[in-house]
């Protein structure tokens, strides 16, 4: 176990370093820099802007300085675009918000997805099953912004129940959590249904039924427990994605999370901020996969960690 964790930590460092290096090279090889503006900036002033971020130094020196700052001091540097804030501060402000919203969306996705998946599997071929499968397909096929648009029309304008955007009250959480969770719920439902059907076709289920165990108990205890593994392995990376925020949902609902920075910082050539969010995502993704591996051992006694 300790061995397993130690090995994973070592590989985490290697992964972070590799991601750092690739991002560093990519960022600096696209045309345009963080201080290129539509209106020209006087050379001495641009030079001083660049100097502040060590951009006036040779690329290899920049790489060394950045690497040292990020990995030795845990300091992601200062934002190039929001001049008042450091990257660490931006992440401290945004991550809890994205994570809170993500956890709610995931809770909705898992509970709703597993429930409908189980129901659909147990009632295979019934109109309810077909309806739920249709809904799940639609949930996967419809992009976030369409779902969000429909929800806003429905619940903000036609039936004025919920606020249009913002962050801070329970009612402001409902729509974004639903829109963010919907595609995941659909995916979870599909996976649950498939693996549930697979589990239910096994011999031990027939044995259990023959012993006289009730149908509900067979499905919920014998079936469900054995069909959860695929769901868990889907959830690992999904949680990483959902925790670090979503560009679309955060933008539509005006939520001050982290999601926007993933795209915007790259477009603005904000080297430090984009590096910060990329490394953060790597860390979260790696951690989630690690947790998934750990949970396998708990869920399935046959799995051994090595």
């Amino acid at each position, binding site marked *: 176990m300790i061995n397993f964790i130690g090995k994973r930590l070592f590989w985490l460092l290697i992964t972070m370093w590799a991601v750092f290096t690739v991002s560093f090279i990519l960022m600096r090889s696209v045309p345009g820099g963080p201080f290129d503006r539509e209106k020209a900036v006087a050379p001495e002033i641009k*030079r001083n802007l660049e100097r502040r971020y060590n951009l006036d130094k040779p690329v290899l020196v920049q790489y060394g300085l950045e690497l040292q700052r990020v990995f030795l001091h845990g300091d992601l540097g200062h934002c190039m675009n929001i001049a*008042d804030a450091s990257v660490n501060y931006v992440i401290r402000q945004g991550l809890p918000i994205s994570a*809170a919203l993500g956890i709610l969306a995931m809770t909705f996705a898992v509970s709703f997805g597993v429930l409908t998946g189980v129901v659909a599997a147990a009632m295979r071929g019934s109109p309810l099953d077909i309806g739920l499968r249709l809904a799940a397909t639609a949930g996967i096929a419809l992009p976030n912004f369409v779902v969000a648009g429909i929800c806003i029309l429905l619940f903000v304008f036609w039936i004025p129940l919920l606020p249009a*955007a913002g962050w801070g009250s329970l009612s402001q959480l409902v729509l974004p959590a639903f829109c963010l969770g919907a595609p995941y719920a659909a995916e979870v439902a599909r996976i649950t249904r498939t693996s549930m059907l697979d589990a239910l076709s096994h011999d031990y289920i027939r044995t259990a039924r023959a012993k006289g165990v009730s149908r509900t108990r067979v499905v919920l205890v014998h079936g469900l427990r054995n069909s959860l593994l695929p769901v868990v392995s889907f959830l690992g990376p999904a949680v990483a994605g959902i925790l670090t925020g979503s560009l679309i949902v955060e933008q539509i609902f005006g939520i*001050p999370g982290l999601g926007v920075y993933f795209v915007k910082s790259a477009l603005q050539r904000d080297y430090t901020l984009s590096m910060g969010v990329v490394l953060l995502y790597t860390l979260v993704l790696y951690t989630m996969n690690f947790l998934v591996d750990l949970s396998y051992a708990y869920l399935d*006694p046959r799995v051994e960690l090595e």
Partner: protein
Amino acid sequence: MRLEGRSLFPWIAGAAILCSIGWALNRGQLPPADFTFVNGTEVKSLDPAIVTGQPENRMINALFEGLTSWNPETLVPEPGVAERWDVSDDLLTYTFHLRKDAKWSDGSPVTAHDFIYSMRRFLDPRTAAEYSYQAWYVKNAKKYSGGGRAVRPGDNVEVELNVDPDGVNSIRGKLVRGKLVSIEDKAGKELTDDNLIRAAADAALNIEDWTFVIATEAGEERFRNADDASAASNEPAEGERFARQILLDLHDVGMRVVDDHTIEFQLENPTPYFLTLLGFYPLFPVQQKCVETFGSPQWTDVENIVCNGPFKPEFRRLRDRTRVVKNEHYWNRDNVKLNSVDFLAVESSTTALNLYLTGEVDWIYDVPAAALRTLLAEQPPRDDINPVPLLNTYFYLLNVTRKPFDDVRVRKALSMAIDREELTEEFLGAGEIPTYSLVPPGLPGYAPPQCPQENVVEARRLLAEAGFPGGRGFPTLEILYNTHEQHQSIAQLIRDQWRNNLGVKVRTRNEEWATFNSSQRQLNFDVSRRGWIGDYADPNTFLDMFVSGGENNCTGWGDAEYDKLIAAAAVEPDPAKRLDLLHQAETILMDEQPIIPFYNYVSKNMVKPNIRGFYNNIQDTHPLSALWIDAEEETPNPFMEGRE
């Protein structure tokens, strides 16, 4: 053991859900502010010197006040911190008398020293103020902000010595004054005359490579630029001293404190819009004590900042909401009617519109094009939207360094083959005005000269004359635009018009913003989209862009006569003659057509009908200090004037 671990899962999940709901709600429900509006992207900084955008403009205007302050309706400069001013007969010396009751938000008085400190800080290249050119009208200010690149042998200079790299970064180093004797380059060769000018203009110059020989009190000394960290850890070369930077002597810059409440500015040239510029946010003062106590950018933290405007910040949540409250020390506090204002950092204009339509905000400054059409067509007409033309022009740049755009007949033909009415009326639909000049209409005393209107027959003739009858032999033309739905649709429309009217092959290329800017600067395009927003209400803000080699020219076009006229206008003291010179210059520009003007933007504000003190104007500037709320809507709403 294993079973225990497994049964922990639901508990962990439950706790996570409770935590996240708790976190989501921990900011609590705030009492709403008196006035809430959508301010666009999160402001870059609260430091007036280093910001440039519109959201920043609105924020800084609420927090700080300059020597003058713009009338909310007419934008004419009115007394701000200065209660009156004198202008010399040659229009080169401005003396400002500060009001004695102007105070910082910590209660201390705003003095002439604060303004000189802030101006110097703004010009200091280490501050890296992108907008520093807004102060270059002051004598030698441009030279000062050019740092070591701008000084020449014979100039009086000030050498700022290095400081402890771990100290507060906004405190200046010790100054050594002297006269610059010579500059030596990396190889130790003395740079003179043309060599010096050429070397100093090189954007890639490493100023650390130069040695400055300066005659100081201690005799002739040699200085080399070094940043504080390297100065602290390295020894200078034999006989040299390290300096943080070398600048023109501040005493030679045209600004001085006469007494605690009087400042004098000497200008390079008579500048009719100088008073207006002083009311423009980059030139607003900051408090020396605050900046030097906390350092930059920490002094802009809400708990540290000291400001002198009608409001002061109460809290700032990144990309969410900034609340400002009335500044009780502001001299004109009795005329500030709003006690609190919320700036919402909402980037999507659709989200902003949703917030407005559900009554969450009182003002949005942008409406998505598709929705605008519907809103304007509503019957009975809405009482909260009234688009008016702005001081902004949408145009295409032609790269005259590429064939066949070097031929004026081709450029003219391209311009004459465009149906601007189709563009503005059927396409944009918010009342945008087709334009045939670079300078938008509406500037007092200036009727912009026009380029030829649509004339497809003449366009075809010109193209044939240039050697491309019916578009035959014309190389495939490419329209470059930055990724944006509207720019894309416009580019496609123009592409179709050119194809149909001239028979030329056209394709479009989009690039995202940073790449687009760099392509434009490197003249890496045939035809490129551009929009220009006037910095101040004067034709010069548009016209000086196209002088030969101008940083923002981006067409490769240049004309000696044009340059001469722009230069002559800059030193012309008589306002009417000056405008006439600018008119002549634009006539050349519209005759040569390195650009194709399309239309003038319109404002897209939606303002709740009970808001008063909000006026339409050509720069779309709406000071928050002028706003008040007429709950019963008893007084007429000037914002809606002119809309049938």
